[in-house]
């Protein structure tokens, strides 16, 4: 789809041209993501505000729309304080270690029909491998800060993420079995034909487990024990200030958007249209026909839907106690996934269910 650019740059040597084309694809995605993160923070404060019968930010710009920019400018202008006897190198590397995986995973997400920045064969594994790297930022931040509270946050986070990653991986095994491929684009194509063909229905328990594990992986309420501001002040990032803190903040919200996007891609048909099924065939030929076409807009709608869930959960539930988190992860979520993988295996062999053709 970028042939015209390829022709335009034909005077460049091959490797350089490839690099330019890749950067041209990455830049718009990255800018959109960072803008989304900025406004997600505004949205969060506004939505939680309304849920708690408050107004939320409304001072900067019309209806408070410029609040994220005010926050950003404030954080950039603040001083980055490095605690005494902290490990300087790791202290400054840790925020980068949490932002890089959150952004790099977007390379394999199918954005619209037939397009992902990197159309790799083992996309699902790539997603799992990269999301598992995000925990290093939290652990190293906690250790390098030379602070007891930060260290407690890091310890909690390490155990929690290892526990929930297993449930997450098992849930994705179910998606892989139903989709018959590790390529995310193929997985989306397998869900063609309206919302009843999306994997959320046949894989309903796995969808629930995946979303819960996703909330836990992003350290969001009700699983935010790594931060736990009422118990260990702010957990792993208690010593961070200024831009270093801003990067942690960016990483947290980029991870939320990522989990929302992955849930949409793997269980809710990615860029498929909600109205694609034969029930809505009457729309063909009318001016509303365009709502049946698969597009980036549908992916965006689904991501926004799951983002709202994240905020809703935060406004609704109190924080889990640490032992309850462990119990939920090991004794509830993992058995549920194992049972459903077995059920799915039997149904694949017996050729029952919508995924029967996937083998």
């Amino acid at each position, binding site marked *: 789809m970028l042939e015209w650019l390829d022709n335009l740059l034909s005077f460049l040597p091959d*490797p350089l041209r490839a690099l330019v084309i890749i950067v041209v694809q990455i830049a718009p995605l990255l800018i959109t993501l960072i803008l989304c993160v900025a406004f997600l923070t505004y949205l969060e404060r506004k939505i939680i505000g309304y849920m708690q019968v408050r107004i939320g930010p409304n001072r900067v710009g019309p209806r408070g729309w410029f609040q994220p920019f005010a926050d950003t400018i404030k954080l950039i202008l603040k001083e980055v304080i490095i605690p005494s006897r902290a490990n300087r190198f*790791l202290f400054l590397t840790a925020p980068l270690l949490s932002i890089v995986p959150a952004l790099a995973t977007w390379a394999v997400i199918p954005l619209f029909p037939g397009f992902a920045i990197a159309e*790799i*064969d*083992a996309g699902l*594994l*790539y997603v*799992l*491998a*990269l999301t*598992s*790297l995000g*925990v*290093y930022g939290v*652990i*190293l931040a906690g*250790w390098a800060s030379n602070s007891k509270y930060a*260290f407690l946050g*890091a*310890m909690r986070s*390490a*155990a929690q*993420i*290892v526990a929930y*990653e297993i449930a997450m*991986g098992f849930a994705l095994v179910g998606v892989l079995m139903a989709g018959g491929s*590790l390529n995310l684009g193929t997985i989306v194509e397998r869900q063609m034909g309206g919302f009843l063909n999306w994997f959320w229905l046949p894989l309903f328990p796995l969808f629930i487990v995946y979303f819960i594990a996703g909330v836990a992986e992003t350290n969001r309420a009700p699983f935010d024990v790594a931060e736990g501001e009422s118990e260990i002040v702010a957990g792993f990032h208690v010593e961070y200030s200024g831009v270093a803190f801003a990067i942690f903040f960016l990483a947290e919200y980029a991870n939320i958007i990522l989990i929302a996007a992955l849930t949409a891609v793997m269980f809710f048909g990615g860029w498929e249209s909600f109205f694609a099924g034969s029930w809505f065939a009457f729309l063909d030929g009318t001016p509303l026909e365009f709502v049946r076409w698969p597009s980036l807009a549908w992916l965006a709608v689904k991501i926004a839907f799951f983002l709202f869930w994240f905020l809703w959960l935060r406004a609704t539930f109190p924080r889990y106690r640490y*032992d*309850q988190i462990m*119990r939920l992860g090991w004794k509830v979520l993992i058995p549920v996934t194992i049972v459903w993988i077995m059920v799915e295996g039997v149904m694949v062999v017996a050729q029952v269910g919508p995924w029967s053709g996937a083998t």
Partner: protein
Amino acid sequence: MLTTAIFWITATVLVGSALGVITSRNPVFAALFLVLSFVTSAVLWLLIEAEFLALVLVLVYVGAVMVLFLFVVMMLDVNMTVLREGFARYAPWATIFAGVIVFELVSVIWATGSGLPVANLLAGQAPGHSNTEEIGLELFTKHVVEFELAAFILLLAIVAAIMLTLRQRPGLRRQNVAAQVATRRADRVRLVRVEPERE
């Protein structure tokens, strides 16, 4: 050409970080160097089109095993003098084992260069080739017995590890989660209608 450049850069980083694992004084840094060497070897595996193994290496070793390593290592209060005590006693044995490992590695590299079938296996595959699918087919057809045996040994290890940590102390007060979940409002709260006092 680009591939060769990537190979040399990652290979250099790999050797450097492997040296870092055994030379750094701080165990946290040693663990982090190990993470770096896992990641760089994953890149090397990607270069020989073993994408499944490369990604699983990152997922399992970097994402899970090394996190637990770090978890333990960070809480250690390491005394280096105690650790170095047995150095002279173990040095001869260590040299012998290191020599055997070096011999094995060198012989594999020689075999690769001398036109044995090993060399052909690393040749590039057609674009549509799925590494994952091939590994799955091999594991579940040709090597199914070994695969199941390995799975059984792992299961045994899990059971053993759980049994080792499972100790019943007398007088331990545990929470009964099922009872907590089953609690209803009527068990805890009693609403009493109190008549307002009249003067």
